[in-house]
């Protein structure tokens, strides 16, 4: 019990809840919007799109620790290629992405979006591909504009796939730990310490097993509550 009291009066615990919340919320929204747009975009079947699709899927199979390291190199303030690249487009004095606490959380979210938008894309695109094409044909014949088709036909038809992908992504995002480990190690300060990472740090770095386990239990409780609420609102599995 002592551990729980300690946790509840622990500042880092509350800040890590905030960090986790912002990260899951923002990353998920961006990923869903970008993933769905990509799915619709790739539905045009341009030449060479198969090849680009294969490239696009790659980030999601990479080891998040390696992804974190890779972006640490890209965003390096001295020699990272990213700053050079945006410099070409006239951005001078870029922020120090991984050391300025004002920016680190957004950098983490950015990398998460880079890695995981493909997941949403793959799931939604697959559903989109399986839709009967004659629906779109007849709408086009009836003179519906492309935007109207997307709004009133495509989106409602793929919505269940979007929900499925978003739930899985949300779960994994809530547990995010390996990307933080590779990219920022929770810092600077506590600006990117997620709940999961904080629990890991206590268990594996400080050997405070009791504290770490109590923290994990709190995560499980939060997840269970979140999950039951979600299931109430959204039927994941269509009843048959």
């Amino acid at each position, binding site marked *: 019990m002592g551990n729980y009291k300690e946790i509840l009066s622990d500042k880092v615990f509350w800040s890590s809840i905030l960090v986790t919340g912002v990260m899951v919320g923002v990353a998920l929204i961006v990923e869903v919007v970008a993933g769905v747009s990509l799915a619709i975009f790739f539905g045009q079947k341009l030449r060479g799109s198969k090849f680009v699709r294969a490239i696009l899927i790659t980030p999601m*199979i990479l080891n998040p620790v*390696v992804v974190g390291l890779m972006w640490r190199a890209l965003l390096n303030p001295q020699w990272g290629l990213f700053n050079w690249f945006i410099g070409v487009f006239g951005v001078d004095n870029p922020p120090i992405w991984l050391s300025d606490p004002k920016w680190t959380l957004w950098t983490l979210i950015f990398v998460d979006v880079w890695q995981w938008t493909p997941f949403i894309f793959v799931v939604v695109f697959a559903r989109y591909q399986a839709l009967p094409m004659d629906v779109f044909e007849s709408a086009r014949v009836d003179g519906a504009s492309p935007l109207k088709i997307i709004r009133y036909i495509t989106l409602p038809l793929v919505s269940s796939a979007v929900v499925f992908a978003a739930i899985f992504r949300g779960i994994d995002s809530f547990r995010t730990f390996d990307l933080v480990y590779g990219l920022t190690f929770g810092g600077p300060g506590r600006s990117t310490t997620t709940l999961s990472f904080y629990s890991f740090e206590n268990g594996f770095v400080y050997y405070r097993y009791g504290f770490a386990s109590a923290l*994990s239990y709190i995560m499980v409780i939060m997840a269970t509550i979140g999950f039951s609420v979600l299931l109430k609102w959204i039927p*994941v*599995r269509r009843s048959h």
Partner: protein
Amino acid sequence: MTTLSRVASKSVSYVTLVVIAIIGVFPIAYLFLLSTKRRIDIGDVPPSLKIEWSVVVENYKEVLFERSYISSTINTLIITSVVVVLSLIIGTPAAYTLSRLKIKGSERISTTILSLRFMPPVAVAVPILLSMRFLHVANTRIGLIIPYVAFSLPLVIWILIGFFDEIPTEIDEAAEIDGANKWRTLLQVLLPLVRPGIVVAGIFAAIFIWNEFLIGMYVIDSEALKTVPIADAGLISAQRPIDWNVAATVGVVTLIPLLIGSMAIQKHIVQGITAGAVK
């Protein structure tokens, strides 16, 4: 006019396509490039595209042999294949049961299984280590295989339930009328139909295991049994600054088996996901 605007919108589409490709491939290409550099050349901006083969050989020799990534890769291959096969052997009948047989509360069982995926690995790492010690398999491959199967199953079962749900029950009934029992129906009639689902489930399980390192760090102590992600994580916990050329080489070595694997099964991924999407 219409042709002109069509051409314009086509070219906008193609520019977008190229931009997407660059965003996707650029960081990975950079990783490859860094892995061909000497440590002192890392600071060049932009990096020169000239590749010195002697440096490449040196970097990769260090990672593959001195850091024993060869044995880590073999380890990971063994563990991943065993786990994928076991999860499919256990998961397929489970998914069939939950989808087909009218068991009381099967809906609740399947959501409980899904909720297991909510469990943060951090939460169970210590209990898993203790259980593996209890079974005397800590610091062995089996000690990793058991928890990995447990972690893969929820995903595998859930993907397969979706595929089984898609197959009309009339097919089962027809098989039953022809005198097949449940096992034969599953093995000879339904299994071929859910094959795309099995491929997808196997791929997702493989990706997960290929990248898992938290449980691995707890369970595995010995250098010889480390998997690739455990070795990768070791790069960071080292107290000295990172040698970026070595780190990049490690990154490339980590992702190459996955790249080869995903290219080999690309066709199945698309086919499998498309089939599952009918849901």
